[in-house]
């Protein structure tokens, strides 16, 4: 291994381009990593971080640009297996370990030590080797522990060990602290510094600015698929990073979006909703034409709350009043009585990729396109699909187009559009613009604004703080299944929301 000199580059990407069926996700991005540095990759949702990582790790192919790793040029037709062999490892957020196996079995999967001359695994040797690695780093683990029984933080260490055993020289961590407690995070930071001391390069992706600020040697900032800046040393400050990420001096209107008190009738009232391990005594009201935002970290119970209100998951106790009457939700009833629901995971929960726009719109509108005897009118179905296409400007405007082949933004428009042609009273949107290009994002915002003017009550869940403050008339922040803060009227800054979501008390230390 060579010295940690400034010019000793481990990875050098030049002019990386990427587009998925249309929108340019990465546009001529340069990205370089030095040997043995901790390098943060930051940007707003949709800035292109994940795509860049997917290209480096061979999960997707780039459309243009060159990548040099350890002096070797990486071809466009790259694969994940090839990149692992090169020594590039990704520590996944959703971990990729095999659950029923032990720590040692996972670490040595596909490279198990064999009994001399025989095609059988030398289990004792494998366990010893694994334990030696664990002890070397001082992890609190046993080689024979079964993965299922380990907490998330421990599994993450197993992932790191697995990467180490692959002789990884580059480890990429995508939001590694999102499901860790503060102590666990601290322990992870220690491990990351240990990796650095060993000469391993760590790419760190996080939305938590303090972490980035504390850990990183250098920071690459992406915005709208372009490289904005690479910060180093003194230049790294949370304020500067945020300024570069957002990329414009926020106008008064944007950074301090005025929240307006809405006076309409109460559409939905939730009282003391509890659900074991998910929700704890949640109460709120939303009025006609009001956009109520829900902030909080991943796992704070926002999605669970929405699912309970819509009728997907049952809840243990509490009451819901809808349009002034007690209401016990089921999905079918909710749809029939004017709900619309845009789920968190578009690809897994929102779209039916293998069928047409017409099919996707039709299934939510069977009540208006079918006769009481159950016969569907294809012409009415087509009309409804065309309506949705024209309301939301879906491209291409071809009702027969398979939804799976549309761009992310247009897929999302289909998911939203199928509700908009109904008599909508309450729309629930969970992360409405994840993986959506800037143009479609703005259109989505305008749609939500318009619906609110038309008197629809809207619940917005978003981890994208600018989005949340931009859209909401009122913001409720959840933490561990509880309402921890409510912002009404006046102005709210992204920072205030984030502080509440992170559980930082007013004026408290971090």
């Amino acid at each position, binding site marked *: 291994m060579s010295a940690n000199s400034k010019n000793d580059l481990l990875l050098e990407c030049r002019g990386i381009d990427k587009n998925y069926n249309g929108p340019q996700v990465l546009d001529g991005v340069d990205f370089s990593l030095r040997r043995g540095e901790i390098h943060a990759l930051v940007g707003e949702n949709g800035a292109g971080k994940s795509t860049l990582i997917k290209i480096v790790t061979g999960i997707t192919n780039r459309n243009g640009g060159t990548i040099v790793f350890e002096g070797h040029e990486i071809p466009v037709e790259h694969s994940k297996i090839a990149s692992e*062999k090169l020594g590039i490892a990704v520590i996944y957020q959703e971990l990729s370990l095999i659950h029923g196996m032990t720590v040692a079995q996972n670490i040595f999967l596909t490279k198990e030590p064999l009994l001399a001359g025989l095609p059988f695994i030398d289990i004792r040797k494998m366990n010893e080797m694994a334990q030696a690695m664990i002890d070397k780093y001082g992890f609190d683990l046993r080689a024979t522990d079964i993965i299922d029984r380990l907490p998330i933080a421990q599994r993450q260490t197993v992932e790191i060990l697995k990467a180490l055993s692959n002789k990884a020289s580059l480890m990429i961590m995508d939001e590694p602290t999102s499901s860790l407690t503060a102590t666990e995070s601290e322990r992870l930071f220690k491990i990351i510094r240990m990796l650095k001391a060993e000469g391993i390069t760590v790419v760190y992706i996080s939305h938590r600015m303090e972490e980035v600020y504390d850990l990183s040697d250098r920071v690459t900032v992406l915005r709208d698929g372009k490289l904005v800046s690479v910060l180093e040393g003194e230049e790294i400050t949370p304020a500067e990073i945020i300024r570069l990420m957002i990329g414009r001096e926020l106008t008064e209107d944007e950074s301090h979006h005025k929240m307006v008190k809405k006076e309409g009738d109460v559409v939905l009232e939730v009282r003391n909703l509890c659900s074991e391990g998910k929700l704890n005594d949640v109460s709120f009201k939303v009025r006609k034409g009001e956009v109520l935002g829900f902030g909080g970290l991943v796992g704070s119970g926002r999605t669970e709350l929405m699912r309970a209100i819509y009728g997907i998951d049952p809840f243990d106790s509490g009451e819901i009043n809808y349009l002034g009457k007690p209401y016990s939700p089921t999905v079918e009833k909710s749809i029939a009585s004017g709900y619309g629901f845009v789920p968190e995971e578009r690809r897994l929960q929102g779209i039916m990729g293998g069928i047409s726009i017409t099919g996707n719109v039709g299934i939510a509108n069977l009540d208006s396109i079918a006769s009481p005897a159950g016969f*569907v009118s294809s012409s009415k179905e087509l009309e409804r699909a065309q309506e949705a296409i024209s309301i939301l400007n879906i491209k291409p405007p071809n009702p027969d187009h398979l939804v799976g082949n549309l761009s992310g933004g247009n897929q999302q428009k289909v998911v939203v559009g199928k509700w908009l042609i109904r008599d909508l009273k309450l729309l629930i949107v969970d992360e409405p613009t994840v993986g959506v290009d800037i143009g479609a994002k703005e259109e989505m915002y305008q749609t939500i604004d318009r619906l609110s003017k038309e008197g629809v009550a809207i619940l917005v869940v978003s981890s994208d703080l600018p989005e949340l403050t931009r859209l909401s008339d009122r913001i409720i922040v959840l933490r561990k299944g509880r309402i921890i803060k409510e912002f009404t009227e006046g102005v709210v800054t992204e920072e205030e929301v984030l502080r509440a979501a992170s559980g930082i008390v007013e004026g408290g230390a971090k």
Partner: protein
Amino acid sequence: MNAKSPVIKEHLVELRLFGVLLVLMVVLSLISDRFLTVDNLTNVLWSVCLIGIMTTGAIYAPITGGIDLSVASMAALAGILANVFMNVYGMNWIVAIALTLLIGAAIGWLNGIVTTKFLVPAFIVTMAAKTYLFGVAMLVSNGDQITIMQPAPFLQIGIGKFLGIPIPIYIMFALVIVSHILLKKTVFGRRAIAVGANEVSAKLTGVNPDRTRIIVYTISSVTATIAGIVMASLTQQAYAMNATGYELDVITAIVVGGTSLMGGSGSVIGALIGAVMVGFINNGLNLLDMPSALHPIATGIVILVALIMNQGISLPAVLKKWFSRPGVAEAAK
């Protein structure tokens, strides 16, 4: 815009299959002058009508992303039950058929319940049903090949003709039309496709996937029962081994017909063409006096080719990927 184009687009799979069928017919008629006769063509349709009838209901399982392997055992059992009801208990033949259909529906419903409520994969549930239904059929029939001598109207179902064409062919076409309408024109058809395309999304859009699937397996079992009744009448026989292996022919017809086993799409007419195509191939081999061992080989090749075609992946693309893989790893050394 061309008014015709959407219709063509909608039936692209069927049209392409029909083209293949025509080519096959031309080839066979060139090989054998006995092929293109009314008698022979009627015979082929007659030989595929049991598979055809089963297909009209069994197709909904793959459309929802499942599978029904119990149809053949169900059909064999149905013939035996109908015979017992008529000739042991002396029931009127219509009552006997109605009762048999009811039992078929109940077994399908049970398959659906176990799949949806107890979360056992449909493959396993229907394989178990295939096994125990066969056992029940053996038990009830004592393992015998029972010849059905009466009642006469019942026997007419299988061997009777109307306008010179056997009645089972009418039954098959009637069920194809009903099933096609059910799939393409009803709320149930839309829901079945949605469940197969993305169950979670369907559920969040107000479809009840469990209810849909239970209906799917009930329908599948009912058409298998109809096929079993027709078969008993056609062969004048109630025998537990009568339909052995038919479930694979049914799946072949469905897959060749352009329905993906992954769910989310399907074509009843395509499946009919698929069944007829397999019938033609076997018929062609018969006409050429080929040994019967060639029939399963031909059927197997047809399934593979159809599946590869449905995946839409070209051979050059596969080869290119194959040979470009090791490059990077080598460079790293």
